[in-house]
């Protein structure tokens, strides 16, 4: 029994993996059964994750170790950091599934879509619970593969191009990552993730190698995390259906990269080593450049989803920035942004999907006055956008707050400048949209009256939007992401 309990990460992983297998095997013929299985799996996962949350909170560390190759184990383990990511994914998986069911109603190839969708989540679970770099890489690649069918789901030439771009970037990135992992393996052997890192003893003998490997690792993960200049796939991948974009930007892909960077910094290198080698500063600069660059590019985008995509480029780097500042406060900011950005960005993409699905709107200039027709959707969009800018009481504010404090505490005042610039740039590209949706008269005065998105679309949108609000508003609450992250950072910095 305790063995079964100990293997919780596996069950969580399997809950979506098996769902994927069953859905793919079922084929197109049993839509109801498929939906039932899908939802049941998502709910089951939530329950499992809940159990794990309680366990981890009580100080339990789940660990599952299977030898894979001589000297290399497949390690699944759940610590506080994993739980942060797992909970986010599990929650948003449910929301996105419901959304996707409504979104793709009557479109072809749904079984394929939902199958790979579940697979994607399974990979995410694996990434979250990976206990060493090797296991991490395993699921990281699985994610790449399971996402590609989703990106090209529409099957148009444009989608194919996007898919090709996605593949080139991510596979190239994983090649680099693999190189890094192999080199590290050669240098230090296979080592589990341990808070504080495990490489300290090598700093005197191999400083250069450690730096090089770090660059490779970050370079590889940076592709998924959309660090400039390897972010190019993200904006093109927005041709995918809205739930996929939501998944890419909020739950799975981008987050996987960012999460990986967190793991490398915390549990492989360790903060101290990072600072000794001057890598922290480097990472901070890279992240900062991305933050500014992404925002700048976003300003000129005329397509709503493209603008959101560039916004993701910018926002995800907050995470890297936070941990690169190597200081508890900034780390809190960075880590909590992992969750917060997910909630906000998924809200935004859900809304974009609602606009597209309900009224066929893709371009920003067609959004004029949509607030009159879709007040709830638009309200949620507003929440998301304001959160991105970092306005209280939304989730984004909490992240920015801690990042700012961390920057000051670390004595890196230029980072405060970056944050402010980003805030301003975010405002520059989001506020005009808000202005349009609420205050501009509709282009076509004929279209009057309420025309909200379908309940299946609106429900998850509202859920995500209010979650983004709640995460900020109730940040002081004991079970809020912030509280969780504080606990986690305490562990990282206390030893």
């Amino acid at each position, binding site marked *: 029994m305790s063995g079964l309990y100990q293997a919780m990460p596996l069950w969580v992983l399997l809950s979506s993996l098996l769902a994927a297998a069953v859905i793919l095997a079922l084929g197109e013929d049993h839509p109801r059964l498929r939906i039932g299985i899908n939802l049941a799996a998502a709910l089951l996962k939530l329950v499992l994750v809940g159990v794990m949350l309680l366990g981890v909170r009580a100080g339990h560390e789940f660990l599952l170790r299977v030898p894979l*190759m001589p000297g290399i184990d497949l390690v699944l383990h759940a610590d506080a950091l994993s739980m942060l990511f797992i909970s986010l994914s599990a929650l948003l998986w449910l929301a996105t599934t419901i959304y996707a069911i409504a979104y793709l109603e009557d479109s072809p190839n749904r079984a394929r879509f939902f199958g790979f969708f579940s697979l994607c989540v399974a990979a995410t679970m694996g990434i979250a619970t990976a206990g060493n770099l090797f296991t991490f890489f395993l699921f990281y690649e699985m994610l790449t593969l399971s996402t590609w069918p989703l990106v090209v789901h529409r099957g148009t030439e444009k989608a194919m191009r996007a898919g090709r771009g996605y593949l080139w970037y991510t596979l190239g990135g994983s090649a680099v990552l693999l190189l890094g992992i192999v080199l590290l393996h050669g240098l230090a052997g296979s080592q589990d993730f341990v808070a504080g890192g495990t490489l300290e003893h090598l700093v005197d003998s191999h400083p250069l190698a450690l730096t090089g490997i770090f660059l490779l690792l970050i370079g590889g993960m940076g592709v998924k995390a959309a660090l400039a200049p390897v972010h190019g796939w993200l904006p093109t991948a927005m041709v995918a259906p809205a739930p996929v974009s939501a998944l890419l930007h909020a739950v799975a892909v981008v987050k996987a990269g960012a999460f990986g960077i967190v793991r490398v910094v915390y549990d492989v290198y360790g903060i101290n080593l990072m600072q000794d080698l001057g890598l922290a500063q480097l990472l901070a600069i890279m992240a900062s450049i991305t933050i500014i660059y992404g925002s700048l590019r976003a300003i000129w985008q005329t397509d709503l989803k493209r603008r959101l995509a560039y916004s993701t480029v910018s926002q995800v780097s907050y995470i890297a920035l936070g941990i690169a500042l190597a200081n508890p406060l900034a780390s809190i900011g960075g880590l909590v942004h992992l969750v917060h950005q997910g909630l906000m960005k998924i809200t935004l993409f859900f809304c974009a999907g609602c606009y597209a699905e309900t009224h066929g709107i893709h371009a920003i200039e067609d959004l004029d006055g949509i607030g009159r027709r879709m007040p709830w959707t638009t309200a949620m969009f507003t929440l998301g956008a304001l959160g991105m800018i970092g306005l209280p009481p939304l989730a984004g504010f909490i992240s920015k707050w801690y990042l700012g404090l961390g920057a000051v505490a670390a004595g890196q005042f230029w980072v405060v400048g970056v944050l402010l610039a980003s805030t301003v740039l975010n405002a520059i590209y989001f506020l005009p949209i808000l202005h349009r949706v609420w205050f501009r008269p509709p282009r076509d005065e004929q279209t009057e009256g309420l025309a909200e998105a379908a309940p299946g679309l609106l429900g998850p949108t509202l859920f995500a939007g209010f979650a983004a609000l709640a995460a900020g508003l109730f940040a002081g609450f004991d079970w809020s992401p912030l509280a969780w992250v504080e606990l986690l950072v305490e562990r990282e910095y206390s030893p």
Partner: protein
Amino acid sequence: MRPDVLPVMLVFLPFLAGLLQFIAGRPAPRLGNVLVGVNLLLVLALIPGVADEGAIVANLGGWSEPLAIHLLADGLALLMLLLTALLAVAVSLYAMAAWRDQHHDALRFWTLWPLLLGSLNALFLSRDLFNIYVTLELVTLAAIPLVLLAGPGKTVDAALRYLLFALLGSLIYLAGVALLYAQAGTLDLALLADALPDSTLAGSLGASLIIVGILIKAAILPFHVWLPAAHGGAPAAVSAILSALVVKAAAYLLLRLWSGPLDPLVTPAAGQLLGALGALAILFGSWQAFRQERLKLVVAYSTVAQLGYMLLFFPMAVTAAWQGAVYHGLAHGLAKGALFLAAGNILLYLGHDRLREMRGIDRPLAVSLLAFGLAGVSIMGLPPSGGFTAKWLLLTASVETGQWWWTITLLLGGLLAAAYVFRVLRLAFLQPPENVPDRPGMVPPPLMAWSATVLAVLAIVLGVVSAPLLELLGSPVGGSE
């Protein structure tokens, strides 16, 4: 039963089955399927013995050491036998469905295939230089008629080209054997290394000839010219065997000889040369695969590329590289088998395999495409798959030996493989054209679709169960650290 009977049975039972089939004159697929089942059981039965004692040796005829021919089942041979046995089961099931209604072709297939199986087993078990020559010829001469099964009119050019190169290759090999025998006075692999005098011209020349002969048989880059047409033109089941096993057998020999009898002769420089050939094969083959317009040619060129990986053992020559190369052989065998079977299904359904006209083939071929995709994962070397484990081991070796250029080759090769695999997979996702032309072919029966899938799944599973397999394999015999 004594364990050393098992290797003998592995060779002779298939032979017997083939001969009986030949005499019977009527196709008996069931006999063939029973045979491959028994074959698999025999291989499995070998495992405990090999695991316990490291190797099982069977002395044929009971003659004394330098004279007698021995069959050797060590870890390396056992893994190859296992690969062969697994593939044999899948291919037999596939073939049973594929040739159900064709009396003549079925008869020929079920005659030649057990003989080929026996030949392959014999080759893997061989511990004798000249015996290897005979088994090589046996394998070749069983393989070429199988190619012709696709219709002699279409494949005769390919078969002839194949035959010419194979024949020359084995004679060059034989010339090498002659020189080595002149020097060492024995043909037994286990005795050769000690019996060979140091650094004589004859020894080196013999080794060179042997290596080049095998390179030709293994279709390593400049000698790959015969492969794509033959593998691309053969029926799917045959292509699977050829690509997964037949060329692999030659590559296997290279590994075996290099780390065994030739060990005192080989030099790091020669290793680098072979490695360079391998790297060239990886890059050029992948590039060609990417450029092909026909599905089966894509897969065939992929074989050219994938064989290159096995050569990367030679420059590095450490245990990790050894394990990586062998493991790559296994993974590639399973994956390539799956790819060819899946391609065969597509061909069956469409009546052609032109990539251009393949958009939106999704629905009726879902299972086959799944097999193609899963096998592709292994071919690309993505985790969790056998291909990845192999790549990982090779990468580790290249780091260990500090030969960074192979690292780059490996990573680049993976990317190129992704390019050609996804070039095919994307077809399944493209929207079908407006007016779908009539598709004359038939939907492949489930047996054909699932046999491909099972192989692909095995290729993936290989990535998860590597620990016991690698332990079974051990280090290279004369491994130099």
